[in-house]
């Protein structure tokens, strides 16, 4: 049974669980317990959490458009890379397909540009 190639993975899994449970348990058992106000706040790295406006006003989310645009071009470059590597062998057909693909992506880009997605308001 121990010859099974998946046995090390089983051990790894058990070790992982043991380490996670062990380190959390150990800090509960042997860690110092001196609480103050700052320690009871939710953990935030860097900036203070934004106070929510009275009456639940609008919270601007400016970054998501940038992130989505990034994903569009990210995916485009993923497809462009293998195309560029094998360009010589692919011939005219693949070139036309790639131009169509890039044009399609640029339609989405043109939409974002025209609808004010690139303005930082």
């Amino acid at each position: 049974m121990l010859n099974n190639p998946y046995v090390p993975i089983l051990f790894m899994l058990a070790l992982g669980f043991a380490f996670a449970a062990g380190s959390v348990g150990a800090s509960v058992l042997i860690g110092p317990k001196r609480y103050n106000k700052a320690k009871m706040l939710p953990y935030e790295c860097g900036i203070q959490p934004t106070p929510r406006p009275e009456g639940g006003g609008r919270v601007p989310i400016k970054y998501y458009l940038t992130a989505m645009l990034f994903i569009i071009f990210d995916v485009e470059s993923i497809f462009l890379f293998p195309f560029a590597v094998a360009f010589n062998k692919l011939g005219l057909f693949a070139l036309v397909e790639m131009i169509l693909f890039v044009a399609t992506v640029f339609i989405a880009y043109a939409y974002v540009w025209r609808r004010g997605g690139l303005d930082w308001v």
Partner: protein
Amino acid sequence: MLSLATADFQQADVDYGAILPMLIVFGGALIGVLVEGFAPRRARHSIQTAVSVLALAAAFFALAVVAQGHQGKTLAGSVVLDGPALFLQGALLLMALLSVLMMAEKFGGETPDAFTPMGATAPGSPQEAAATRLGLVTSEVLPLTLFSVGGMMLFTAAGDLLTMFVALEVLSLPLYILSGLARRRRLLSQEASLKYFLLGSFSSAFFLFGAALLYGYAGSVGFAEINKAITTATPQLENLLLPGILFVLVGVLFKVGAVPFHSWTPDVYQGAPSPVTGFMAACTKLAAFGALLRLAYVAFDADRWSWRPALIAVAALTMVLGAILTVTQTDVKRLLAYSAISHAGFILVGVLSFDRMGVAGVMFYLVAYGFSTIAAFAIISMVRAGGSEATQLSQWAGLGKREPFVAVLFAFLMMSMAGIPLTAGFTAKFAAFAPAVAHGDRAGAALVIIGVLASAVTAFVYFRVIVLMFFNDTDGDVSVLSPSIGMWTAIILATVVTIVLGVYPGPALDAADQLSQFLR
């Protein structure tokens, strides 16, 4: 330097005639995106409506004239244009055309009536007017619909699991957005959208996981190859097959709305804007059943005896639970949602007959049900109380006395859904149930008995609505908006189709029969 393996590039054969209808729909959607970016704001809505209608009509024309002569496998087997694909794509395009006319409806306002330009503003408020002035218009719904229709067309014609998955996502993602755009009862709509998205991505994960298992089993994602691998099976991989099949079926049964994967249906049907609900109920169901047929009859056919019991149980549960829960509904949209669930069960009975006649029956049922559902949701979007849709059943009391024409139309659609003879619903149920009796074994007959009993239960519900409309006293301030020519055309056409399919079903049944052979 890493050397990359460069095998000789083999260009896939592309039969442009076969994929022309899909290219037209996706092209129309892309043009719609450009229109959204460049056309002047005032003209946008009219241009978008024209582009969508033209694209769908042109795609139907291309399907009937060009694609019909280009049947076969193309794009290296990832698209299969055979009889069922042709029939379902044609039906999809026609139903989508009617849905687009409904979505474009303004009811005399400045913007499409059902959709909000900004999710945070109340209809008719100064904030909404300000949002409209800022250019937040709602004509995006039409390109989104076109993208979804394109995905649905591909869903019915996919030749392998990966293409089917991509099609599933292309059809689903726009629907998640569309169902959250309702102008009235916005929170309900946004909640519906989120629920649909979360449960939908969950079921997509099931589909993908099943596809991975099947790839492990067969060494290919192609449907024909999977079926071939089942017949020449390697015993040590046998364990991957059934879980893979069941997981993939879960993904598709979710889109169909079969019990126990139905829980999203009532919430989403209720929350989504009514034109979108009609579109989803008719077109998504048709596309999902097209995919289910292809999986059951092409990809998993050779192993059908091991997964058939599970699907039989799902079909029985769907019919029984759908019918019982329909009885308890007090909201028209939720009522139609639960009725959609029980209809999914009836259609599954036809799927389980494993016969060409069954395929034809299922396709006919999908068309008959789709057109009457679109018209029903169109009428629901017109019945208003205090500005928003009067979806409470009690508000429909006495509608027949005040608005006889609309009430008669709705009553007729209800009768068709109940399956009264001389309506499309009756012919459809007969077409779906008869092959199950003729070709299914005892399980098929048992399913048909459950189906007949369940339709008797749901018939009671539909007749209760009719009685409520015609024999009860009017109550409250319910009024019926008068729609524009486009929407009237859609409603009348859908009703006429429902009548014709009931009174003179021969040509449609023949067409479904001729186009019922899957290409393996």
